[in-house]
């Protein structure tokens, strides 16, 4: 075991982690622990863009952006946070440009902007061009640009270090415990402040746009330390994933004029969203697609998908604006998007919920109090600017705005305090976990349990949910958790034991899936990404509040979930019916 001391430790080197690192490295001694080389983070997969009311191509202002965000989130958004995000969006984009990000440009040489789902002019009048982009590689460019600037500022990275535990002593943050993949060694990082930026958790669904590595490690280990998770039932299903594979085809495709069609060739979104049509918000489009499929208008021999039609767009436009996604269609489906429509289906995409924080990125330990020295930003966190449904492009914005804020806040805080003493035997839990798995002799296989988890989640907790399916999911997950106790792994080694880590990651997924299902079961209404067929309307009287899920550990070590609720911050927009 090794012990390291840093003022600030950042967990994760995706967009949020690196944005925080750039700030905190300049202010305090910072280490970034990441289970992947930074440029492998899933921020690089983001395609469409990052919204900011720059008004480079048409009239716009941050207030309209705030309204769209609040409405897109089905009024579950904390409006003070949304205001901050939309106001700071402009600087966030300009910061990135100054760091060197190669945005696509207008004729005048300014940052170009395009349309995106749910973004409108003057409170819903018409679509507006707000998304700043670099072809369909915006996330890639953001990730590269941030990494480049980390190199410039000499950020200290610990690559392929898996953070497996958070250390809290007497209510204050003391550090984290990490497992070094290369050697199997355990490292304790003592830190004055810790920023979690470890990304999403989409891998508990089968059809998912998320990477194999998005297993919710951050959420799970914070949760196991008794801290709450907020709004986990809200998971976004992106309308256009490549059929069966889930690889994302950006909403930018529809922003450029792409059209969703059913087997009759009908532009069915006209029926569901007369104004915004194909650019209605994601939950609306995903439900529309499933409705089409259920009512027998799906395409293909099994009628289980619809088409994203780009064939009417000029090939030059596709080459210039959507080069990557057209290549995905060619590589993985073998079809030519110039002439063929692309088979798509909704794909699990984004966790709106996560570790609750305030606007400074400070992690909450209940509805009002914070954990001193603990911060979170990015998809792992829930500020909540996305409410019940995130608008396209608002996540890249979120990671930049709140990544920066958390980085500054964490470093500043570290300047003002001393190290919290490490608890006794800080690595005990992790050591036990790792040793336990290495020595386990059970018959269950990690891959099998993960597969069954994904299947039950896809079947029971996806776009359409009912009390019955969610109960099924809860039961299935409980059974799987029981079986998980009996897993064993084949690789008993120390060097690059990915077998072991996959088992650890599955443990995280199981815990989080359970929180999702239990929170969803309790929310007897439909709102944003959470749609209950048995409660198809929004219930602002009972459920205009955030879910807070806590893990309760009983005397005998069994765990259960306790749900609590937290009020939504409303500043200027009163809930209205949501129409696109």
């Amino acid at each position, binding site marked *: 075991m090794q012990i390291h001391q840093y003022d600030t430790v950042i967990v994760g080197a995706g967009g949020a982690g690196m944005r925080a690192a750039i700030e905190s490295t300049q202010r305090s001694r910072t280490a970034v622990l990441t289970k*992947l*080389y930074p*440029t*492998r983070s*899933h921020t*690089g*997969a983001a395609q469409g863009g990052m919204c900011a009311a720059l008004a480079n191509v048409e009239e716009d202002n941050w207030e309209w952006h705030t309204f769209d965000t609040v409405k897109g989130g089905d009024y579950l958004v904390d409006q003070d946070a949304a205001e901050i995000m939309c106001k700071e969006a402009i600087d966030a*984009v*300009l910061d990135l*440009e*100054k760091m*060197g990000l*190669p*945005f*696509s*440009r207008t*004729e*005048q*040489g*300014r940052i170009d902007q395009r349309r995106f789902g749910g973004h409108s002019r003057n409170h819903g009048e018409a679509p507006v061009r707000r998304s700043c982009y*670099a072809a369909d*590689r915006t996330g*890639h*460019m953001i990730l590269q640009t941030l990494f480049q600037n980390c*190199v*410039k500022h000499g950020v200290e990275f610990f*690559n392929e270090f898996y953070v497996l535990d958070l250390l809290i002593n007497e209510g204050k943050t003391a550090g984290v415990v990490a497992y070094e993949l*290369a050697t199997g060694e355990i490292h304790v990082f003592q830190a004055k402040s810790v920023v979690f930026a470890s990304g999403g958790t989409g891998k508990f669904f089968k059809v998912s746009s998320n*990477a*194999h590595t998005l297993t919710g490690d951050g959420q799970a280990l914070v949760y196991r330390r008794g801290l709450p998770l907020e709004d986990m039932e809200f998971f976004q299903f992106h309308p256009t994933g490549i*059929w069966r*594979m889930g*690889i994302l085809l950006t909403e930018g495709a529809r922003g450029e004029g792409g059209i969703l*069609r059913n087997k009759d*060739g009908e*532009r069915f979104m*006209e029926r569901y969203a007369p104004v915004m049509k194909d650019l209605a918000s994601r939950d609306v489009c995903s439900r529309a697609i499933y409705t089409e499929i259920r009512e027998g208008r799906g395409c*293909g*021999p099994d009628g289980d998908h619809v088409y994203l*039609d780009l*064939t009417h767009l000029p090939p030059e436009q596709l080459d210039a604006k959507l080069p*990557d996604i057209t290549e995905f269609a060619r*590589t*993985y489906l*073998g*079809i*030519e998007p110039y*002439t*063929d*429509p692309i*088979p798509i289906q909704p794909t699990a995409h984004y966790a709106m919920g996560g570790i609750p924080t305030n606007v400074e990125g400070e992690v909450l330990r209940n509805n009002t109090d914070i954990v001193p020295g603990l911060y979170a930003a990015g998809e792992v966190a829930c500020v909540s600017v996305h409410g019940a449904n995130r608008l396209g492009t608002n996540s890249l914005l979120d990671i930049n705005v709140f990544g920066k804020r958390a980085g500054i806040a964490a470093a500043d805080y570290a300047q003002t305090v001393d190290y919290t003493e490490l608890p006794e035997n800080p690595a005990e839990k992790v050591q036990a976990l790792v040793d336990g798995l290495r020595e386990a002799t059970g018959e269950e296989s*990690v*891959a099998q349990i993960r597969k069954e988890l994904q299947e039950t989640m896809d079947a029971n907790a996806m776009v359409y949910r009912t009390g019955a399916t969610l109960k099924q999911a809860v039961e299935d997950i409980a059974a799987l958790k029981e079986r998980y106790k009996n897993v064993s792994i*084949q*690789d008993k*080694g120390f*060097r*690059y034991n*990915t*077998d072991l880590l996959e088992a650890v990651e599955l443990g995280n997924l199981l815990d989080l899936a359970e929180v999702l299902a239990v929170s969803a079961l309790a929310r007897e209404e439909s709102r944003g990404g959470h749609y209950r067929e048995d409660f198809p309307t929004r219930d602002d009287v009972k459920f205009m509040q955030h879910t807070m899920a806590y893990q309760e550990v009983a005397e005998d070590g069994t765990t259960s979930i306790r749900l609590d609720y937290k009020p939504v911050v409303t500043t200027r927009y009163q809930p209205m019916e949501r129409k696109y």
Partner: protein
Amino acid sequence: MSTPTVEKHSAALDAAESGGVQLITVTFRIRRFNPEEHPDPVWVDYQLTMDPKERVLDALNKIKWEQDGTLTYRRSCAHGICGSDAMRINGRNRLACKTLIKDVNPEKPITIEAIKGLTVLKDLVVDMDPFFQAYKDVMPFLITKGNDPTRERLQSAEDRERFDDTTKCILCAACTSSCPVFWNDGQYFGPAAIVNAHRFIFDSRDEGAEQRLEILNDREGVWRCRTTFNCSEACPRGIEVTKAIQEVKRALVTRRF
């Protein structure tokens, strides 16, 4: 605009949508190296029944999940944008997640080994630190003088286009580890570092081109490249790597960029 356009079904679309899958039996011949078991590498065969339209990465996952959990490789995104899984498949560098089984002749055993020229640590996992060191050595970040403007720096669409190709790099190392010069001389900066230098040298906003060129004007710099084009062939992002290297060479000769 809602005229139905989907009547004209192409054969390719039909094939993509066809439900009935033709499963085939494929052999994967993997060069394993697990020093905790054996100090030397060995070739191991695995037989699988798979849909040929699946990716090589799917096959590796299947092996790891169903046959041999000790098989070790890096992967994350599974669709060619994170750069984790460059490896040598049938003798050529590719991303396992961007290579469909049907495209690498599944009739014969498909060979898989680690990329060349970097220290192999276990199975398909190599030490990437020297690779990233070369990247860092070319100062891969925007260098500007004077104060930042209040708004964005202006850049014409043509100027943006000038370096578009090299912004696509995902640092997967497929190019560098396919370069015959690099295999024998790991000190060579390698194509990936040059690509990333190119990305800034030809960015109209950047003012550090002179310095970067000076770094590459070295014994282990661009002049080491023998235009073997392996890098261009290997790049999963379709970057014209050799062309970028030539542009840097010409910029060094003419001092115009």
